[in-house]
């Protein structure tokens, strides 16, 4: 058993939201085709660190296990990504795991991404269809447009773009790239477009679109390949038109 292959992991741990973070090393038995989550499950099964001391199991968040929900995002070897699609065989060892510290750390690798959901509410990232009567079918959407919009709709609010953005931090109110791109998605929807002006006003509120500094890390970091910087530039154009319309234009515009 002495020559059994192992995986070395260095995990940044934190016992509670206000506790001091610390590092703990683990050495776990290697299996074929492991991802970071199955490695973490191995630690949970046998919570013993590399020194052979018994410790608390490492805590992390997960959901779908197929890179659709965004819950298991963490910083793996310095790069924010989903731990479900981070394969051990493709990672340099020791594998370093840290929480995405752009968000409040709840425990170990689990963070609270509430701010992103608050931002989606702020920018009205939905299509309002509720009324006092049946609103009927909405207008049709061209297939080419639907395919394009589908790419934007792949956003899973995972927070990787916020973690990568130098302008999203405790010194700034910037809501980050993800909710910006959602404004573009819902403004493009034929029924969603009814509320375009409202969304633009919310988008240009403090901490909104204007806080983007064009470092363009988001588009590189996005696991879903969403054209975030194209969305931002397109919204910039929309914002230019919108602000001219509201200042020089009519008392009603959409």
């Amino acid at each position: 058993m002495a020559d059994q292959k192992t995986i070395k992991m260095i995990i940044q741990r934190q016992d509670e939201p206000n506790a001091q973070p610390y590092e703990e090393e683990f050495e776990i038995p290697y299996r074929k085709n492991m991802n970071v989550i199955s490695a973490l499950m191995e630690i949970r099964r046998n919570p013993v660190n590399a020194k052979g001391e018994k410790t608390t199991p490492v805590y992390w968040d997960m959901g779908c296990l197929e890179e659709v929900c965004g819950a298991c995002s963490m910083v793996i070897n310095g790069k924010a990504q989903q731990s479900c699609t981070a394969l051990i065989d493709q990672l340099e060892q020791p594998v370093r795991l840290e929480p995405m510290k752009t968000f409040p750390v709840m425990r170990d690798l689990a963070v609270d991404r509430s701010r992103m959901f608050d931002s989606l509410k702020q920018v009205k990232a939905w299509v309002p269809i509720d009324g006092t009567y049946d609103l009927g079918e909405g207008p049709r959407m061209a297939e080419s447009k639907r395919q394009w919009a589908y790419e934007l709709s792949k956003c899973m609010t995972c927070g990787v773009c916020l973690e990568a953005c130098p302008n999203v931090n405790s010194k700034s109110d910037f809501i980050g790239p993800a909710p910006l791109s959602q404004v573009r998605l819902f403004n493009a929807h034929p029924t969603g477009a009814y509320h375009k002006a409202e969304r633009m006003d919310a988008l240009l509120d403090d901490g909104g679109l204007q806080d983007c500094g064009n470092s363009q890390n988001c588009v590189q970091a996005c696991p879903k390949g969403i054209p975030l910087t194209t969305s931002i530039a397109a919204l910039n154009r929309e914002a230019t038109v919108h602000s001219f319309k509201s200042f020089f234009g009519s008392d009603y515009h959409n």
Partner: protein
Amino acid sequence: MAENREFFNRRLHSLLGVVPIGLFLMQHLVVNHFATYSPEAFNQAAHFMEGLPLRIFLEFAVIYIPLLFHAIYGVYIAFTAKNNVSRYGFFRNWMFLLQRITGIITLIFIVWHVWETRLAYAIYGTEVNFDMMATILSSPFMFWFYVIGVISAIFHFANGLWSFFVTWGITVTPRSQKVLTYATLGVFIIFTYMGMATLIAFAY
């Protein structure tokens, strides 16, 4: 405009960087470039600029007020960023960092430059001409201080021109943004060449 004040400030900051500050920078580098022809050519060009009508008004409207706003708000923007090029070493992220570093260097340089060549004139009546610049730049320290300051200012302008086009939604597609990267690189090279030639003409 009471609402969305931050949006207004950021857009104003972006606009002022190009109009009038960027235009002034280009004009300034072009006029100074006359120094490479002869001291007389430079003095003549400088005197033409000094003789423009409403000079004080022009200086305040085109240079001092826009520059003060751009500088102060820019320092605020620079210090609200948390740079991460060690983790995300992409080209644009480096440009983002360099834009902030060159902004701070340019601010320090301009404060000194305005004091030395404009306030000293206003307070002590020092004459501003080729000889004055030649004296300043004869010191190797000042020469390199000017080299770094001028390159920083031109970089900040050229790269700022790139983000101006994105901020106002002129270049939206990745391809147009890439083409603009090369175009602004050209702006950087041409004006850096002019600036360096001018400094060398003064110093040697």
